[in-house]
């Protein structure tokens, strides 16, 4: 129960007690106050983040719509990025999506693949890899859909989504048509995506969320409707007032082609949602992957797997669709992890300015309780928030929460300077008692720097045993936040290789045991905001020098590996155990 300025209407109108939501705009926000910040813990935080994008050679700006104003929402939502080891050399390469401009394609506008030079720098290999593509790209998910040992790429677009097969020789071939993924009819707005082996046949299927049924022809312009104003300033319209998208599920036929099974699988029942980031994981721990879709200004969706090729949508009942007072929120990005170390996968969902991002605690049966305020992450409501992760940034054994921010309305700050377009990153360190503490300058200038960011991905690009962060900035070069972690905290990386399961092992759930702690992580092909993390699961171990891991493979197999020494990457092959790493060097 929150009191807001609009709660005064209770007085003036003798209205019902219905919570008055800030729906006087295109995007849902509860317009609530942040909870008070507790006194600083005084505990040191050993991670420092420095933006090394420039030195690393990530110079090209990520083109996305107008710079000073945005006529359509299409220009505003931006895109994601991925850490992908496309050449299997053991070093994370970088894939960045891109948009374009209404008035025409600038020369810089293309998705980009950067090869890791293993010395802190990257080389743009986009053209050589065959990945040059111009358009309104949104989401990316990475996985080995043809089980050939090389990770492939799927990108969503306003327009036609694209599937790129990794040829294993440093190049990709677009296989959209051959794979049967060409859309017919009007242009769709593909948003989030996830490779997910929903029927456990060992082949990665594909789920695609759709945002809006958008057309330039019918889209209203700033100020034209009530959903085209924000705090009195005419802005791009939507998503409210625009027709919702339809989500799609494609079954992998095992021969490089896909068949759309949206209707058969029951996905088409969810028709009233503006779908965004997709996270597929086994939330109820029944061995079958479920699918969570963060939705903007509509209830988020949780498709529970019925084990027979169909799903049932239960987001509201399971407590992840709405705020804790039953209101819609602008779900954009999703972090997944085990913040309270109970062995279950929790969720963190980012929202619009003047609303808290939501932290949802899972009881292991996919029943979630929103614990935002109890966990003290409700102290931050200043920013529109996007890509997020529940990741251990200081290797103390407790997953922290990080997210990037940025307004969707560049024109607003001229009138309302208190709502800038570029805003800083947000870092909540996990205090280990179920609560978080927001850090600002303590975590380095990379956290404080203001950009209008969207997607972000977490990975260890320099293989130094800590998590770095790749960030999409609108109409700017990306940020690459190098983590310069001090101290002697230990860590462990797990790389999984499926055999009966899909080769990427996407959908696997891993529980690490270290000290007296347990921590669950899931191997997913998309999270954050339209982005894909380093597939090597990273566990901070704190003072523990070894760990045991339980692996719940997508095939249903459960394996336990004991006594793994800290501070190394181990590759675990399904049914085999630990095998030599491919190309791992530090």
């Amino acid at each position: 129960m929150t009191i807001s300025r609009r709660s005064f209407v209770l007085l003036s109108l003798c209205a019902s007690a219905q919570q008055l939501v800030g729906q006087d705009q295109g995007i849902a926000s509860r317009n609530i106050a942040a909870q008070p910040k507790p006194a600083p813990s005084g505990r040191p935080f050993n991670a420092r983040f420095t933006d090394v994008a420039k030195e690393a050679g990530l110079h090209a700006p990520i083109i996305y719509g107008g710079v000073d104003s945005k006529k359509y929402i299409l220009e505003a939502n931006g895109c994601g990025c991925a850490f992908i080891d496309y050449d299997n050399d053991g070093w994370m390469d970088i894939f960045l999506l891109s948009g374009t401009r209404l008035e025409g394609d600038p020369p810089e506008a293309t998705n980009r693949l950067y090869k890791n030079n293993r010395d802190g720098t990257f080389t743009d290999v986009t053209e050589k890899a065959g990945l040059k593509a111009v358009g309104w790209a949104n989401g990316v998910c990475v996985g080995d859909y043809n089980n050939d040992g090389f990770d492939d790429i799927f990108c969503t677009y306003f327009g036609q989504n694209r599937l790129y097969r990794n040829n294993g020789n440093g190049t990709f071939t677009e296989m959209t048509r051959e794979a049967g993924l060409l859309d017919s009819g009007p242009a769709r707005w593909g948003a989030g995506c996830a490779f997910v082996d929903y029927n456990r046949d060992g082949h990665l299927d594909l789920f695609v969320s759709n945002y809006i049924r958008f057309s330039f022809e019918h889209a209203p312009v700033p100020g034209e409707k009530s959903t085209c104003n924000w705090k009195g300033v005419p802005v791009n319209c939507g998503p409210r007032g625009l027709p919702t998208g339809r989500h799609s599920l494609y079954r992998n036929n095992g021969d490089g082609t896909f068949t759309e099974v949206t209707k058969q699988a029951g996905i088409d029942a969810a028709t009233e949602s503006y779908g965004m980031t997709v996270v597929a994981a086994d939330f109820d721990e029944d061995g079958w992957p479920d699918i969570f879709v963060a939705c903007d200004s509509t209830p988020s969706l949780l498709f529970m797997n019925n084990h027979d090729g169909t799903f049932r949508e239960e987001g509201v009942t399971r407590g992840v669709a709405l705020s804790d007072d039953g209101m819609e929120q602008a779900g954009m990005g999703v972090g997944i992890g085990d913040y309270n170390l109970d062995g279950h996968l929790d969720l963190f969902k980012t929202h619009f300015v003047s609303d808290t991002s939501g932290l949802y605690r899972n009881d292991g049966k996919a029943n979630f309780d929103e614990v935002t305020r109890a966990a003290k992450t409700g102290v931050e409501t200043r920013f529109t928030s996007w890509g997020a992760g529940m990741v251990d940034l200081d290797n103390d054994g407790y997953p922290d929460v990080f997210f990037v921010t940025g307004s969707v309305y560049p024109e607003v700050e001229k009138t309302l300077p208190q709502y800038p377009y570029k805003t800083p990153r947000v870092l909540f360190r996990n205090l280990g008692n179920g609560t978080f503490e927001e850090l600002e300058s303590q975590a380095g200038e990379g956290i404080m720097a203001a950009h209008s960011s969207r997607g972000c991905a977490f990975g260890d690009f320099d293989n130094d045993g800590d998590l770095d962060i790749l960030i999409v900035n609108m109409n700017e070069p990306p940020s690459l936040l190098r983590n310069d972690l001090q101290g002697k905290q230990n860590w462990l990386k797990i790389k999984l290789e499926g055999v009966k399961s899909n080769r990427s092992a996407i959908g696997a759930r891993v529980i690490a045991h270290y000290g007296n702690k347990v921590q669950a992580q899931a191997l997913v092909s998309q999270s954050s905001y339209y982005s894909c993390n380093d597939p090597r699961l990273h566990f901070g171990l704190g003072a523990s020098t070894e760990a045991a891991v339980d692996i719940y493979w997508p095939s249903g197999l459960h394996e336990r590996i004991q006594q793994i020494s800290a501070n190394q990457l181990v590759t675990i092959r399904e049914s085999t155990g630990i095998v030599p790493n491919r190309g791992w060097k530090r």
Partner: protein
Amino acid sequence: MNANSVSSRIQLALLLLFLQSGILGQTPNERVQSITSALQDREFGKALQSVQSALQGSPNNPQLWMLQGLAYSGTGDSKSALGSYQHALKISPDYLPALEGAAQIEYEAGSKDAIPLLEHVLKIRPNDVTSHAMIAVLAEKNGDCATAVSHFSKSGPILDSQPEALQGYGVCLLELKQTDEAIQVFQQLMTSQPNDTRCRRALAAIQLAAGRPQDALTTLQPLLASDPDVSTMRLAAAVYEANKDTPNAVKILRDAIVKDPRQTALYADFAELAMDHQSFQTGVEMIDAGLKLQPGAAQLYVARGVLYVQLADYDKAGADFEKAEELDPKEGMSAAAQSMLAEEQNQSDPQRALATVRAKLAKQPQEAFLWYLQAAILSQNSAEPGSTEFQQGLDSAKRAVTLQPSLIAAHNVLAKYYFAAGQNELAVKECRIVLEKDPSDQSALYHLVIALRKTDSQGEIPDLLKRLAKARQEATRLEGERNRYKLVVSSSEPTK
């Protein structure tokens, strides 16, 4: 129900019954005939003398006691009449004429004691429409609409000639949210009394409440076509607004203000309209005009203060709330507003806001809204169940709903406390209270879903989910409607 008509009908019935009955077999015919003749001739003193004489010989004859009751009634001595009927009933509890006589007296006195007597009559004569109607009227007056509606529905055509009873029926149907039936009743009233302005307004108001603003407008048209009074104009403004015709809503409200510029409620209505359309400054300017004519209207200061809060002009808002409190210290709304203002201004310092609320509570401990505010502010801290702060919040919410059971915001916050404490059954109960008052309250619907999820009674959830989805869509639609217009103040101000 017209008491006189019922009374005469019952007395006639009694006499007829008496004359036709076989009771005379136990009493000397001549004496009884003399009593009934006296009653028929309205010679009540004479009848009384005769019956009292007869009672000396037959003190256990219920018929004679009933006749004495009739005679006393004729003299206007209702108390003695009632005593006589009651005596007759002691001797013969099912003696219908005495039951009806006693019920009539109790009914005319507006006493609840009529109800068991009438129910007794109905046991003997289940289809007695008069008894049904009388119970219904009494129940309606006592606020028991469920009973009232049940009996009104069995009253048959007797209601046709009883407009007040019919109106009570309609009001009760509305109370029970049987709006379609209520509309039918008021339409029936309108047919019988087409020129009754109050009745027409009531029908329009019900149609508006039932979500039929177009029907409401049709109902109001005859009134609007002539020279409507200000009450009709206020209602018409709401009807126009519900019909998405904001320009006409504004126009008629302005006309009403010009017609009766000293009626403060009109300015408050305008402020509400301005609030709905995010036209806060326009609302302020209209209230300014009202305050020029009614500088002592506390309600207008509260309304303007609320608008200032929307404009984030907290100093002016605070000044208005203080002025309202100064003008009407007993009016709790301004204290509540001041407390909310403190909360708004001290978002990062809830303790300060809490201190303000507590200071106000010390002065006005019976103000439910302040207890609700305290509970709501405390709930924002997500205190652990069992902690002092949690208990304070819980107690405050309980106090708020005790003081003002209709304050559904307080029920919602109480549900949240119960929910947090794992007391799901109690949370469910509070949610249901909210939903009874407002079936589309999203928070209550959602909390009910989540609470039921944690119980064994999950069968209700699918229907609740549908209701929640519908409520969300409706809320979004309404918000869109509200934002279609921005209000501006024209140069013409009321001058009277």
